[in-house]
């Protein structure tokens, strides 16, 4: 296979850091941002009078935005613990059609099932549970699944908070959620939410020695392989100095059908240091993207071969990336994140979305 490359196209500025992206009807791009705003983004000229338009708002960071093609609705999630149903074509005051209180704490991440019928969201506050600041047990279910048509709660799953990442399998049967301590639980939704595997890896979690005694890091992104036979985890490698953010830019792959096994990971010579926040598979299924922040090295966005795990392409995008999305035809990649916030300035637009052409 010829190695894919990324060619930078349009860069769009938003009011604040972009935490999540989704492609809606006709590949319309939407973003959820640190300022609580849900924005419709103009990826082509003159679609909107300005590059972005606010269509809804959370009362805190808007951590997630998801499009249900079957239900024709957006579902957003926020640090206010709420899920919001948004009709992007609704009139100004009627865009938000429903709101559900999902958690008492933040929604760290939310994902929609491939058939668009369910949305999963994760939560959990890191509180001291031991002498070494091991996380305390949850005070509310850390993982919940809601019916998009009705807003009803379908599943509640226990986990150890904070649970920072979640993913549906491509066939929609499985759900996986990963936490601070590098523990990923897999549930079978067709068997009533039966737990089928528990992956434990210490490689994404740092316990501070140099600065202070506490845990940081964890699994920030999850993605099932196209055949649903393995699960990818991404984050930052373990570090003894949590305040430096200098762990490895790390992904690992696990299988679970014959006992949990690590079946692949990033090649050491191909990775630098920094937190990786997003994983996305190219629609062709041959390669995937991992991206985030660069602390040391020469890239913060790279494409990796699914079979061999080798790096196919890499580049330094120039800002911290928190989210990514491929278009269904596989020709474009959207990367969302933010530049430095800098001195307080209401007018500064420090959120970023960059469009890349894939060749």
């Amino acid at each position, binding site marked *: 296979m010829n190695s894919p490359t990324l060619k930078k196209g349009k860069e769009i500025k938003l009011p604040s850091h972009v935490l999540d992206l989704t492609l809606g009807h006709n590949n319309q791009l939407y973003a959820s941002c640190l300022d609580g705003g849900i924005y419709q983004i103009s990826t082509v000229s003159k679609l909107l009078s300005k590059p972005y338009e606010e269509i809804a708002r959370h009362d805190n*960071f808007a951590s997630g935005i998801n499009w249900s093609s079957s239900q024709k609705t957006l579902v957003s999630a926020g640090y206010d613990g709420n899920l919001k149903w948004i009709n992007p074509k609704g009139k100004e005051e009627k865009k938000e059609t429903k709101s559900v209180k999902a958690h008492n704490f933040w929604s760290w991440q939310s994902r929609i099932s491939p058939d668009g019928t369910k949305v999963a969201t994760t939560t959990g506050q890191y509180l001291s549970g031991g002498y070494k600041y091991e996380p305390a047990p949850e005070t509310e279910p850390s993982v919940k699944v809601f019916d998009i048509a009705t807003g009803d709660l379908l599943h509640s799953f226990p986990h150890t908070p*904070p649970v920072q990442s979640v993913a549906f399998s491509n066939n929609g049967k499985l759900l996986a959620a990963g936490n601070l301590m590098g523990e990923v639980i897999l549930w079978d939704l067709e068997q009533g939410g039966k737990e089928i595997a528990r992956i434990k890896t210490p490689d994404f979690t740092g316990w501070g020695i*140099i600065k*202070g005694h506490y845990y940081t890091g964890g699994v920030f992104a999850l993605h099932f392989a196209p055949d649903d036979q393995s699960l990818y985890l991404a984050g930052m490698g373990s570090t003894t100095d949590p*305040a430096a953010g200098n762990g490895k830019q790390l992904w690992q792959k696990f299988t679970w059908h014959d006992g949990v096994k690590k079946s692949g990971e990033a090649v050491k010579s191909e990775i630098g240091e920094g*937190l990786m926040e997003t994983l996305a598979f190219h629609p062709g299924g041959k390669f995937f993207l991992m991206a985030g922040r660069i602390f040391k090295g020469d890239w913060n966005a790279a494409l990796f071969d699914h079979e061999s795990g080798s790096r196919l392409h890499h580049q330094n995008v120039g800002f911290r990336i928190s989210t990514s999305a491929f278009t269904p035809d596989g020709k474009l990649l959207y990367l969302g994140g933010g530049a430095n916030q800098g001195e307080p*300035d209401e007018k500064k637009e420090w959120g970023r979305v960059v469009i890349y052409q894939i060749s």
Partner: protein
Amino acid sequence: MAKSSPAPNCGSPDHNLHRRKFLQGLSAGAVSTMSWAGLFGAPAFAEIAKKKQKHCILLWLCGGPSQFETWDPKPGTITGGPFKSIPTKVPGTHFSELLPKCASIADKLAIIRSMKTKAKEHTQGINLLQRGHAPRPPFTRPTIGSVLAQQLGQLESKIPNFILLDPCPEGNEFKGFKAGNWAGWLGAEYSPVRVGGEFQIPDAHKLDSITEDDHEAREALRKFFSKKYENDRKSAAAGSWNATFERVNGLMSCSHLFDLERIPQADRERYGPGAFGQHALLARTLVEEGAPFVMVANGMPWDSHVFNHEIYQMVVPDLDNIIFQLTKDLEDRGMLEDTLVVAMGEFGRSPWINQARGRDHYPNAWSLAMAGGGVQGGALVGATDKYGAEVIEDPFNEENLFATIFSALGIDPHAEFQLDGFPTFHHVENKAAAIKQILS
């Protein structure tokens, strides 16, 4: 010859002081700065004799805690972060939602929201906020703990006058500071006894193979030769070492006080399971036993250049509970009036979020909290602008802060250190004023 009958006293308990109690009632610093004859002259004697023992617990939040997630929240602004603010027991005063327990006792806390200092890096900042003054080489100013150990410490106390509880031995720049000279020109006897982690002082027990008589004989011999060496050489260093040996002797008799296992389990559970809470509880018990100054640290967990919100969702609730429990316990024991609790770091954190989800160092506008002896509960002084970027009301620096701490503990902030061959130094230089709004 007829003996004269003793002069009748007025019956006041002040006249019934046992010699040991009398000496214990004298601060080491007071004795070191006045002549023996002068000690009995009015009004110094009367003032000192009636002075109640004061204590100070410093919760040292090393790394620089964020004011946004603690005492000066800016919810709903571009700098505010994800945490809301909550009302407190003091009408009009809001804290971060991460401090609900402190909010419930806000009437016992004094908050300064307008600290404005100049040190931007840890080493500078730690020195500045531990010593109260910028460096003036070649002289090394003692830390606040050393000065308070001298001023509040007891002459015959077995318990150390300056205890540092720090279960995290590391801490980057703080580690370097810990290895340095805490007591400065006051000498090694005012350095901290550093304990942490295992809660007990190691090797502080007399070997079973040595009898009590042998132990005392060896100590007498050591004392004789050491004193002779000190006198012959006129060595201040030897004097400091001798003082240190005295302190070790004291430690051998009080090492059990550092054993957390002796504290009721219910108390340990109240302070939370983390190392910081457990050591804050230990600080309370040591103060109950008479320790004048205890500093509790735990590395540098507040230095949140990465994952500010992710870390603060844990460390701030931990601090919230610690301040709450400490304040309530001291009050329940009738000790809050005489014990000053200070929670602060070396600076605050930036209004902006950096690329690593963190907040950076920010000395321009930051906050701290006090409770207890000498400060006015419910006081709130200073203010910052809408974004928490600038102080807009009553800026205070490290000298004002130190003058306030000394004043709250009944120590003249502008008194001179008595130092032979040194330039004139004061507890606080430049006649900096205490923050009167928070002094009771």
